[in-house]
Each structure stands twice: as C-alpha cells, then as structure tokens.
C-alpha cells in the first residue's frame, strides 16, 4: 500500500517548517500505533486522506476537450493550506495523505486499504460506485467520508449512510438551479437533447424531474446518436436535428462535452442552449468573483496555475469543512465532528454569498449554484422568488421528505 504524505506549509518561515517536520515525524509513529489524536493538550494533529479514482477518459469529437488531470486534488491542497493557516494559531496541524489510482486499477482493494488506514477523515474524488461501496463498508464506521467527485442523485436519495457527506452538488441540485432560472425567464417549453453515455441519461433524468418540479414542459426530447463529426458539419446536422415543435430553450445532457458545444448557434430556431453546455449550472467556475471569491480564485491560481473547477471547489469545501468543525470544537474526534457538521451550528464561509451548511438528512452541502457561461456569471440560484419554509437553499435538490433517509 502506497500512501504519499505531504506537508503543506509554503507560507511558514523555514525554521517553523523544520519544527513541524519533527512534530510530523513524531506523529507518524503514533499514527502507526493507531492513534490520530494530538500529542500535547490543546495541540492537535489531524490527518486528512484524499482518495481519487481517475475517471476513464472517453473519446470526444473535439481533440481539445481535455480536463486538467489534477481536478479535485488541487482544491484539497488549497483547503489543507487554508486549514493550516488557521490551525497554526491554535496548535492544530493538518496533514495531507493522497492515494490516487488510475481508472482501470482495482479500486475495491484500494478503497479497502484507505478505510483500513489511520485517517478518520477521507475525501473521496471518485465515481458513484466507489462512494457507495466505501460508505457501506463496515470499516467506514466511525470515519467521516466526504464525496467530492460524484453528483449521483441516488447517493443523496437512497444511500443514507450516516458518516457520508457530499460537498459536490447533486445533479438534481444543478438541474433545479437551471430550471428555476428558465422558468423565471418564462422559457418553459423545453427541448431536451441527451447523449448516450451513462452520465447523460442520469443528468437528463434530473432535468426532467426539475422540469416537473418547477412546472416547465418538455415539448421534445431526442438522443444524440453521435455518428457525425460535428466539427466539420455542425451547421448542416444541428439545425435539422433540433427541428420540432416550437420551444423556448434547448437543454443538453452531455457530461463529457462530446457534442453539445456544436449545438450553440446552430439550433433550427434561434434559441438559447443550456445544461452541460451554454448556460451551465455549476458548483464553481473560474468566472465566479463576487462575495470575495476573487481572493479564493487568486489563492487557487497561485498553487494550481490554472482556474478553479467544480471538483476543486468541492474538495476545497470538504477539507475546509473538516477544518472549520475542528477549529470550533477544538477536538478531532470523528463522532463529535460528524454531529457538529450535521448541526445548525456549523457554517462554512464558502465565497458563494451565503453561509453553507450540511443537510442533516443526507449530508449534502447546501449551496448556491452559479449559472455561468465561459466568461460570466449569468445568475445564481436559488433565484429570488423560489421560497422554502426553512432556507431557500433547500429549493435545490432533495428536501428531507424526498429522500429515504430518516435521520
């Protein structure tokens, strides 16, 4: 088993790094003995394990669609850095262990090894099956797992594992955000185009659910078969493909960005395109700058040398949530941290204009969803006017009664 241990302390003076290295070495031996608590009273050393299973890179029409390879990891790194900046004033230190495996590797044994490891806090950036298996594994008991990589609706609706949290918004939250906007603009007649890959069907299902929830109408639906090279003849294929009854907006489920981008400006009717392309509901985007977000973007760019994506944001929010809870509680005992994360006392300053908290019933991080295009934020959901008796943020995604989670 290969665990990489990093110490992130770039802004500390050199001698203090040396000092903390000593502390770290001391703690490594205690961690090996199965202890994760701090050495002295008041001092805490917390290990956060980052576990990533790479997504398979599927071929796309464009040869330029290549998402950064370190999405998620860099967000977690920044989170550790932010935690330690606070922690050094309190005697709290956060160590970062990473385990990253390729898509084709045996993720089951890797996941079991991670759960058998010393870290009580595990940040998971992996597809839904990995998250489900880890959350159900008996070895996860007493640990806190945070899903930062899967937007799968079932993980929020039916899995109901008490120690599992999600900082990435579900597909349902993103679809609800988009539909709130479309309905607010009175673009209620929708044409849904979905690709044939598994994620596309899932996002299309979320969009349909959201359309029903906010009283929009699907007037047409088509599946993109994907046998034409749209780079050469989008102007000929797309208009014919998007013919049909009159509609106000074309919504697209194309999670790998295989074909969707070629539909923009090529629809039969002059209509806006939204969903996986065009106007996109996201957890985060490099174009978000309000509410102090510009500072987070700059800090991220400094360490990652690229823009911050939704996966980075989710990983950052996961690590920061653990840090925020431990800062307030002054203990890293997982049971107490879990109760605190579920409670109303927890609030994360997440640069989205409102405090963020976790839904007690399924561990989903409540959060505003920016609706963005390549260069600007168009709107931020919840859109004004959509009301909820507790918090407008719960107009996005699954409310308590829509899940099978009783707690």
């Amino acid at each position, binding site marked *: 088993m290969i665990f990489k241990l990093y110490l992130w302390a770039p*802004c500390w*003076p050199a001698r203090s790094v040396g000092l903390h290295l000593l502390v770290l070495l001391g703690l490594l031996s205690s961690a090996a003995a199965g202890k994760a608590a701090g050495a002295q009273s008041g001092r805490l050393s917390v290990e956060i394990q980052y576990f990533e299973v790479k997504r398979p890179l599927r071929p796309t029409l464009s040869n330029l669609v290549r998402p950064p390879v370190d999405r998620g990891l860099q967000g977690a790194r920044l989170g550790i850095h*932010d935690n330690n*900046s*606070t922690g050094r*004033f*309190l005697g709290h230190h956060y160590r970062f262990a990473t385990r990253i495996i390729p898509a084709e590797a045996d993720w089951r044994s890797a996941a079991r090894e991670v759960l058998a490891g010393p870290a009580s806090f595990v940040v998971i950036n992996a597809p839904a099956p990995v998250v489900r298996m880890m959350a159900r594994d008996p070895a996860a008991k007493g640990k806190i797992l945070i899903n930062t990589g899967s937007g799968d609706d079932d993980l929020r609706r039916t899995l109901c594992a008490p120690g599992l949290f999600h900082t990435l918004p579900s597909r349902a939250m993103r679809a609800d955000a988009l539909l709130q906007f479309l309905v607010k603009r009175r673009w209620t007649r929708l044409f849904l185009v979905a690709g044939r890959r598994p994620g596309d069907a899932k996002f299309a299902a979320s969009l349909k659910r959201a359309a029903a929830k906010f009283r929009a109408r699907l007037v047409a639906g088509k599946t993109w078969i994907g046998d034409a090279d749209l780079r050469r003849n989008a102007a000929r294929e797309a208009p014919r493909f998007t013919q049909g009854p009159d509609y106000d907006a074309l919504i697209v489920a194309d999670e790998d960005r295989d074909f969707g981008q070629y539909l923009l400006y090529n629809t039969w009717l002059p209509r806006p395109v939204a969903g996986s392309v065009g106007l996109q509901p996201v957890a985060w985007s490099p174009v978000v700058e309000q509410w*102090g977000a510009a*500072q987070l973007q*700059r*800090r991220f760019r400094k360490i990652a040398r690229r823009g911050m994506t939704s996966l980075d944001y989710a990983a950052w929010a996961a690590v920061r949530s653990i840090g*925020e809870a431990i*800062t*307030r509680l002054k203990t890293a005992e997982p049971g107490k941290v879990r109760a605190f994360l579920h409670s109303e006392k927890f*609030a*994360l*300053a997440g640069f989205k*204009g*409102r*405090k963020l908290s976790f839904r007690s019933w399924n561990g989903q991080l409540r959060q505003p969803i920016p609706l963005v295009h390549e260069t600007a934020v168009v709107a931020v959901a919840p859109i004004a006017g959509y009301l909820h008796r507790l*918090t*407008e*943020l719960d107009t996005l995604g699954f409310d308590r009664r829509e899940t099978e989670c009783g707690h």
Partner: protein
Amino acid sequence: MRLLAGTIVAVLAYALAMGAARADLAYVSNEKDNTISVIDMNKLTVVDTIPVGLRPRGILFSKDYRLLYICASDTDTVQIMDVKSGKIVGTLPSGDDPEQFALSPDGKLLFVANEDDNIATVIDTATRTVVAEIDVGVEPEGMAVSPDGKTAVVTSETTNMVHWIDTTTYKLVDNTLVDQRPRYAVFTPNGKTLWVSSEIGGSVTLLDVASRKPVAKVGFRIPGIAKDRIQPVGIVLTPDETLAFVALGPANHVAVVDTKTLKVVTYILVGRRVWLLALTPDGGRLLTTNGISGDVTVVDVKSKRPIKTIKVGRFPWGVTVRPTKQSK
C-alpha cells in the same frame, strides 16, 4: 461711505467664504470607478470627483485632516492625497492589495491589512517606510488601533480570527476565534471593548480588550429577509457610545443597536449591499456606502430616518468625513 461699502463687501465675502467652508465634506471611495466622490454635507450633493489609483477601498484622513490616505488595492499602494488641492502627492509602501487600514492615535503609524499576502504591514507615515510586516491569518481585512495606541487588531476573513498585535514589539500577542468571515473591527472610544462584525456568521461579537475574550454577541433578524442574507460589515459607534450602527450588506438595511442592552432598536432601509458607515463629527448624520446601487444614503441619527440618497460612482466602498472646523 465708500469705506463702509467696502467693509460690507469684505464682510459679505468673508461670510460667504466661511459659509462655503462651513460644510462638512464626506469623502467616498468608488471601487470600480477609481475615483473619490466629495459630498458637501450642507447641500447633500457631490461637489467634486477626484481620480485616484486603481480600485480605491479603505480611506482615512491624517490627524490634521490635511492628507487623505487611500488604499489603492490594485495599484498595490496607499496613496496620499493633499486634501486642499485634490492631488496625489505621494505613496506609502503598503505591500500588495491593501484593503483596510488604521492610523495610530498619534498619527505616526499606519497599520495596513494586505488581503492577498496574509500579512499586516506597519508604515511610518513620516518617513514613508515599512516598519514591520506581521504574519496573520488568511485574508486579513478589518484593522483597528486601540485609543491608547498600545494594541492593533486585524481580522482574517478565512481564518475567522481577531489577531491582537502589540504596537511596541509588532508581535502577535493573541488570536481570538470569532464567527465566520470577520470583516470589520472598531474599538469603543473608552478602549475597553472591541466590536467585530462577522459577515457569514451573521453576527457582531463584542470582545473584552483586557482579556481578549468574547463577552457578548449581537444577532439580527429582519422580517421578510432570509437570515443568511443578513451579513454584517461596517460598524460605527456614536461619539457618546450609546448607539452602534451596523451595515447589513445584501439585507440592504442598517441595524441600530443600543450599546447597553445590545438589542436592535430599529432597522433602517438604505441602498443595495450597504457596506461601510461613517458619522458626521457632531454625530448627527450617518452616511452609508451602498455598493450595488452606487449611492450613499444620509440618515438623520436622531429620528433614525434616511434623509437623502446621493448618487456617487460605481461601487462606493469607504466613507470618511472631514469636519468643518478643520477647513482652512
């Protein structure tokens, strides 16, 4: 006779000149216009708009009101404006991205929060040199110096702390955890209590300066406005310390807090995304910068009602008032 007429003219001219000078002048930094708007507080109109450095945010006067210090955040300097001429006459080496700052009571030292660098910079205003750089938490923001000049505090937005700095050694002496995203700090005039606003926490914490511990918290509630839209930022205390005004950001209201009971007396509706506040020197009027609506609301303190909203530049951020009696 001619002598008399001449005297009358002279007296009239003098009276006019004094009349013009009698007005307090409010200076407002416009973050997205790179200008300072000057408001005549008698006429309640903008009488001047002065171009300054990039992204002006924090502004304050030297103790003699001859100079205006301006955090030009994107120029990475503190600019010095000669108030009489409206010209920039120099800069202070503030470090990167200065946002808020505070002057020591003797006016000799300027404490600057460098938001992007996680440090606070101390500048000697006479020699215009950096005296110290102090490592603080992530995104330092609010700055204040105690009335006795012995303690400076800086709030860090992401670390969620108040950092206490000894102004003789420039060392951190303590760090106090407060609610999420502390934005602004102000000492009571008697120096015993520090008020700190937490934007995301939605609260104002009162800290005992001697023990550096939180002693009380003020919460806010406005019917019809979601709790998480109530985001306290600017705070100003009346000179007699009986009332505190707290700007509530996107809630578009200013809370009036009784400093004895710590209860909110009333909420005053102002412009959109109300940010920072200032009082006229006599304590009679409150000014609010309303970032999104691009204006300044003038509130009558006695009746606690807005009198007028004045259009300024884009995204007004800071505001400070130059009193009449200092005018020459």
